[in-house]
C-alpha cells in the first residue's frame, strides 16, 4: 500500500530543535525517522466529532506531531462525558468541546495547529470543511453524519478512518482509499430509525473509545507516514468482555451507489432524510 499523503520530502518544513527533542522516540524508528516526522508535521487530519473516539484520537495525533488537526463539533462538555471523553476535564463542564479540546491539545503540544469548526457537518458545509485535509476520521455518533462523511470522502478522494462503539464492542476500518471499499459497500443503507440504539441509550464502557480511537489514530498515522498495511479491506471487530479481536473481509462493491463502477450518488444528498426511514427520491 501506502503512498504518503504529505508532500515530497524536498518540500517538507524543517523541525525546530525543540521538536527534534520532543519527537526523539519517533526519530529513532527507521520507519518514521526525520522525514516521517516532517511528513506528520505537514499532514492535515480532520476529526469529525470531539467526543469518545475523538478524545484519544486528538490527543495521540497531537502528541505524535500531526501538524494540523481539524475538529468538527458543536457540543458542550457535560459531566456524563467525562467517564470516557478524556480530552476534556471537570473544569471544562459547560464549555464548548472545541475550546476545551483546543486548550488541552495546545498544552500537550504547542507545535500543533488546531482548527475548530463549531458546527454540525452538513451536505452544505462538508466540501468547504473537508477540502483542505489529507485524512478524515469518522468519530461521529449517528448514521446521517456517517453516510455524509463516507460520501464526501469518496467524492473528494480522501481516506476515511472509521470507528464505531457500542456497549463493550467496537469496530474499525479504513474506507475510501483509492482501490478499497467504502462504508456504503459494507452497508448500502442505514437501518430503520429506532432499530439500533445509541450509546446514550445503550451505554458504553469508558475505555472502549480509548481502544478503538487509538486504533483509528494508528491507521491515520500510518496513512500520513505511508508505512505499514492499512485496515482498508478489513473490518476489525473488538470485544472488550472476552478481549478478542476478529476481522472480516470487506470488498469494494462494483454496484456501490457512491464508489461503484456506475455511481448513482455523485453529489451530496439530504442525509437526515436518507436516514429517517422515509423513502428518498432516487
Amino acid at each position, binding site marked *: 500500500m501506502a503512498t504518503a499523503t504529505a508532500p515530497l520530502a524536498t518540500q517538507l518544513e524543517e523541525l525546530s530543535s525543540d521538536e527534534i527533542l520532543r519527537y526523539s522516540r519517533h526519530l529513532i524508528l527507521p520507519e518514521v525517522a526525520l522525514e516521517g516526522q516532517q511528513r506528520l508535521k505537514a499532514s492535515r487530519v480532520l476529526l469529525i*466529532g470531539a467526543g469518545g*473516539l475523538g478524545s484519544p484520537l486528538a490527543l495521540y495525533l497531537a502528541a505524535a506531531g500531526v501538524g494540523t488537526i481539524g475538529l468538527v463539533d458543536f457540543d458542550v462538555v457535560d459531566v456524563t*462525558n467525562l467517564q470516557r471523553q478524556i480530552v476534556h476535564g471537570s473544569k471544562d463542564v459547560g464549555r464548548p468541546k472545541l475550546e476545551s479540546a483546543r486548550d488541552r491539545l495546545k498544552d500537550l503540544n504547542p507545535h500543533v495547529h488546531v482548527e475548530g469548526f463549531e458546527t454540525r457537518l452538513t451536505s452544505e458545509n462538508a466540501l468547504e470543511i473537508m477540502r483542505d485535509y489529507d485524512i478524515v476520521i469518522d468519530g461521529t455518533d449517528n448514521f446521517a453524519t456517517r453516510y455524509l462523511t463516507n460520501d464526501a470522502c469518496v467524492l473528494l478522494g480522501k481516506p476515511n478512518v472509521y470507528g464505531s462503539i457500542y456497549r463493550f464492542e467496537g469496530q474499525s476500518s479504513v474506507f475510501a482509499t483509492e482501490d478499497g471499499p467504502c462504508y456504503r459497500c459494507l452497508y448500502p443503507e442505514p437501518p430503520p430509525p429506532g432499530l439500533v440504539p445509541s450509546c446514550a441509550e445503550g451505554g458504553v464502557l469508558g475505555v472502549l473509545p480509548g481502544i478503538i480511537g487509538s486504533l483509528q489514530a494508528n491507521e491515520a498515522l500510518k496513512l500520513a507516514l505511508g508505512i505499514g498495511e492499512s485496515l482498508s479491506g478489513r473490518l476489525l471487530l473488538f470485544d472488550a468482555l472476552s478481549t478478542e479481536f476478529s476481522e*472480516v473481509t470487506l470488498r469494494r462493491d462494483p454496484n456501490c451507489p457512491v464508489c461503484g463502477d456506475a455511481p448513482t450518488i455523485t453529489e451530496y444528498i439530504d442525509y437526515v432524510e436518507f436516514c429517517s426511514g422515509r423513502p428518498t427520491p432516487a
Partner: protein
Amino acid sequence: MTTVRIPPTLRAETGGERQVPAAGDTVRELLDDLMSRFPGLRTQLVEDEELATFVNVYVGGEDVRMLAGLDTPVEHGSTVILLPAMAGGV
C-alpha cells in the same frame, strides 16, 4: 452445529446470549433455525424474505453476499457472524 455470534444490538432478542448454536447446512437454514427460536430477530435480519440491507452475515470472515447469499453453505463447527450497522462514537 454452528456457532452464531450475536451482536450487542440484537442480544435483547436472544436473552442476552453473545453466541448461540444453530443448525443448518446453509445460511438460510441457519437463520430459519435461529429465528424460529428467537422470533424477535426476524424484523432485525430479514426484509421481503431476503437478508436486510443493513445487516451483513459473514461465514469464515467472508460476506455471504459475495458468496452465494442465503444459499451459502455453512460447514459444521464453523462460526457465523451477524453484523448489523452500528453508529455509536461518543
